[in-house]
């Protein structure tokens, strides 16, 4: 049942047109941040307004929507955003990655491989990968125009000099089709390889910063690295305590006052899909 006081998917048609035009230009120029006149949404800036606007512009009544935050469908903000679209767009929702046609995410890419026909919408807080090196938009825009990414390499190399490793664990910068350096949103770098050559359409929405960018399917996305320090997708070196998966990204959970801990899949759908099929971890009931 949709809320009749508002237009389908909340936004008015003129706003959707504006966002849709930005999405198309984003797809035509992979990795380039298209400015768009982000609207004030009924949830706070920084809480997924960019992703929500992109989803609202993309959804049709036939879609099945999945919303995750930190990989989980049941985190409060995911619940809140899913509820928003149930109310304003009346779309079907699911927690199963494979059943979803549109997936809005914060901070994770699902473990299950995505397919053609799916759209992954990322919530992005700071879309500019160069922002922490240069706070001025006027400057970073020039740097992208001139492909001047030396500063980023210097920063990464300074990490290596100091720590022996690149000290960026999430929001790890990537280069798209050899041209634009792009912020993949604060996903753990474990997820970076999934960005490349993905069969699904990937859309990125930054509401407060008023930017939309995109990766068409099968786009080449490389994590920045050096020949002597190649990129490495890392995760906690444990199997999942519930489903025993050894290849999924894990959350660390502190289980008692003595500091005992266990590791469980961050992607709750992935974990719940595996357990009934006989995969058990050491902490499973």
């Amino acid at each position, binding site marked *: 049942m949709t809320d009749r006081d508002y237009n389908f998917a909340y936004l008015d048609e003129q706003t959707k047109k504006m966002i849709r035009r930005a999405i198309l230009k984003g797809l035509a120029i992979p990795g380039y941040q298209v400015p768009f006149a982000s609207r004030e949404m009924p949830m706070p800036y920084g809480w997924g307004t960019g992703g929500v606007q992109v989803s609202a512009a993309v959804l049709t009544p036939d879609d099945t929507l999945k919303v995750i935050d930190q990989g989980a469908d049941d985190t409060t903000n995911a619940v809140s955003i899913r509820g928003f679209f149930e109310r304003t767009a009346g779309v079907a929702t699911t927690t199963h990655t494979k059943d979803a046609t549109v997936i809005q995410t914060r901070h994770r890419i699902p473990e299950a491989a995505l397919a053609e026909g799916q759209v992954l919408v990322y919530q992005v807080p700071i879309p500019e990968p160069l922002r922490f090196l240069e706070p001025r938009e006027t400057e970073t825009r020039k740097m992208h125009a001139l492909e001047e990414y030396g500063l980023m390499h210097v920063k990464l190399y300074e990490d290596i000099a100091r720590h022996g490793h690149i000290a960026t664990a999430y929001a790890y910068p990537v280069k798209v089709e050899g041209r634009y350096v792009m912020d993949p949103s604060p996903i753990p770098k474990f997820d970076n390889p999934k960005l490349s050559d993905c069969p699904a359409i990937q859309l990125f929405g930054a509401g407060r910063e008023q930017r939309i960018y995109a990766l068409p399917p099968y786009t080449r996305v490389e994590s920045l690295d050096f020949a002597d320090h190649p990129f490495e997708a890392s995760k906690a070196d444990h199997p999942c305590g519930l489903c025993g998966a050894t290849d999924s990204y894990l959350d660390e959970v502190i289980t008692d006052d003595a500091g005992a801990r266990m590791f469980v899949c961050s992607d*709750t759908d992935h974990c719940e899909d595996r357990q009934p099929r006989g995969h058990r971890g050491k902490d499973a009931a």
Partner: protein
Amino acid sequence: MYVAVKGGERAIEAAHEWLAEERRGHPAVPELSIAQIREQMSLAVNRVMAEGSLYDPDLAALAIKQARGDLIEAIFLIRAYRTTLPRFGASTPVDTGAMACDRRISATFKDLPGGQVLGPTFDYTHRLLDFRLAADGEAPAAPRREASPAPVPRVSEFLNREGLIEAAVPDDTAPPDLTREPLELPAARALRLQALARADEGFTLGLAYSTQRGYARNHAFVGELRIGTVPVEMEIPELGFAVEIGEITLTECETVNQFTGSKSEPPQFTRGYGLVFGQTERKAISMALVDRALRWEELGEDNVGAPAQDAEFVLYHADNIQATGFLEHIKLPHYVDFQSELELVRKLRRNVEASQQQEAAE
């Protein structure tokens, strides 16, 4: 045995119900009406209308009630509501020169045509808690005088006649609208003024104050501050003329600022400008000072690196809805990012320990 945390949906519902209960307060205390808030908390209503960019005192009062008096939350409610309103057109520019003034003061002239009209101001009240209000809020009737029907002339016009102040050149180009177009820099003055008009009062005040203390000082005098009502007119294409669609209260501040002149221009005063919905004079004066500071380039002044001179800094950080949203979003779960940092720090520490052990062994 470990059971993954569930129940986000139930937790949210319960939190909302608790919030509603807290908003209402003790049920033995009578509930506030929208009209009470509109009439008796009118300066809060004005701020919500100004920073919410929507002139509707009843909706602003409702937002304040719903937000439990948190004005930024109320502004947010109004902004989100504003997004859903269709735009039928734009009014013709309001003529603040024809304002029916409730208050009009000038700090630059002792007396002047139109007079100094104090109006309903806190300025010369003694800030002593009035305990009578705790018992009985009824006010004695203020003395009345016939309003003079003639428009009140602008102070800047007196200076303008002698060429002592920079000319404000009329400009018919449609101003940009940052609620419809993404912010782009460098921003023209019209866009900067729009951003400042809806900017956070506290942020604008702090910036304005910083200019007074020497961070891009611009020697502002309040040339004129006027508060009153103006008619809003809209061009109706089918009629071919403008019709009045309503009346709004505005606060306008024009500052008169120093200018040393240049080779091509003789010394003359310059202007800073503030215009805000409702009776909001702290905001309007602050806006005028920040506007003036941002004009350093066109007036040939030095950029001394002051925050109030930096248009990109000011415009990107003046909006309290953007700021509060991003600030508060760090309450959201970040355990995926945190976990990746945790792993990294552990790894880096292992490396350090290993190399220390190796050094010790050697």
